[in-house]
């Protein structure tokens, strides 16, 4: 076969593979990915009310929400940390011990200083409601439920 026709078939075939495997990856939550073929489903679902897990870190000034940063906290603004916290929270509520250990260890090692004490809290909330609460002073509301408490290894 001529080089140009081979190339044309190669390009078409590769585009089809990207499309088909990408769409099939939609069936593989939560990542929706058959690496490196991705469904490109980022920001596809508009967030409504959903389960959210927060981490409260004990500091000398009192408990601080993880994303605000402070003593003992590393990578407060990292979206990877956010995802690990959600996985840690889900593992704690489902009672999957192996999963819990994996995510707890990763969170403590990557995002906390050794010896830092923390609590994981759960709440079902709408992002716009939470946003407005933040605008009104940023205090964590009373309907939070503790699902896990731990301390980063020294």
């Amino acid at each position, binding site marked *: 076969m001529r*080089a140009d026709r081979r190339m044309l078939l190669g390009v078409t075939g590769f585009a089809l593979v990207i499309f088909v495997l990408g769409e099939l990856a939609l069936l593989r939550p939560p990542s929706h990915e058959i690496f490196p073929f991705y469904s490109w*489903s980022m920001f596809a679902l508009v967030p409504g009310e959903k389960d959210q897990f927060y981490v409260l870190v004990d500091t000398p000034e009192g408990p601080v929400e993880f994303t605000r940063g402070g003593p003992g906290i590393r990578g407060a603004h990292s979206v990877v940390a956010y995802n690990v916290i959600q996985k840690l929270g889900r593992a704690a509520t489902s009672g999957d011990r192996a999963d819990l250990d994996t995510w707890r260890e990763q969170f403590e090692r990557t995002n906390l200083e050794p010896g830092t004490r923390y609590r994981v809290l759960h709440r079902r909330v709408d992002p*716009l409601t939470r946003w407005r609460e933040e605008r009104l002073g940023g205090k964590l509301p009373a309907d939070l439920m503790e699902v896990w408490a731990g301390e980063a290894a020294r």
Partner: protein
Amino acid sequence: MSWRWGLLRRFRRRMAGSWRGLSDNPMRSLDRVHQRASVLVPAVYGVMFFSALNVLPHWEGILGRTQLQLLWPVMWLEWVPMREGILGILVLFLVGTGAAMVFPGSRGARVAAMLGVLLFWALNNSTGKIGHSLHVSLLLSILLVVLPSGWNARDGARPIKLAAAHGLVGMQLVMLLTYSMAGLVKVGAGIFQSVTGQASLFHADSLSRHIADRLLQTGSHTPLGAFLIENPWLGGPLMWGAVYLELFALWAVFRPQLQIPFAVGLIGFHLASFFTMTIIFPQNCVLLGLLLAIGTGLRPRWTVGGFLRELPGIGLIQAMLARPKRAKLASPRHG
């Protein structure tokens, strides 16, 4: 065999709308696209090399990683000394992409670049969350491996030059396909959420919700993000415009009038994502500029009318509005 070419030709014609190519000398057109490919392929490797250079200051931190959820391309790290294995990946990423930029004609260099990007990106994403800023570069590096030997020789045979031209258009296709897939999933998810009575893409506050959710996840604050959350009347149309651009991005491969406006629109979309949600895809922005704004060079003179005619959906509406007029004009003659 012939049915396959027929199918491809029909698909290309359908996607191309009214665009039938330049009434130019075909050999001169081919030379022009080949020349562009000879510049743009090393430039695309240059973007990957630049990404590898940006990783240099972080080598020490990456080498220190231990507890990882390894993705399949880097599973082998479990059976070798971790630090040395990671060092090998970082060196391959840097040297492979650099070599492919300097020697794009060498398949060995292109394979090294592809492996370097694949392994580095798999390693970087073995931390519990997969990021996507280097995915398009990775897909392009896989595609470019299949370029024939001697593709960039100036005095190459016609089939070889054509293959290089297909490679350049293929890069546009692969890149814009990822945007169209993103648009398609958003529309699909929007219909699903609408039908199930949830907040959806078709609500004016869809962008406000995305921005609020993202800023809360990272504890960040952006003035533009806050403004759009509070003003959904502006955020909604912006969101729908972005989804339109994404969904129909693939059309720009076949309709050159759309390429510069879509490049500008999609780069604008990435910049807006940064200024509202602190998310940026820097490689994509540069690749959009290279592959669409510079592109194949086969482009008619840009006019607003020509652009509107080629816009997916808009052209269709224009054609539908024009049809009754034509029918009216035609009827007395037939009558």
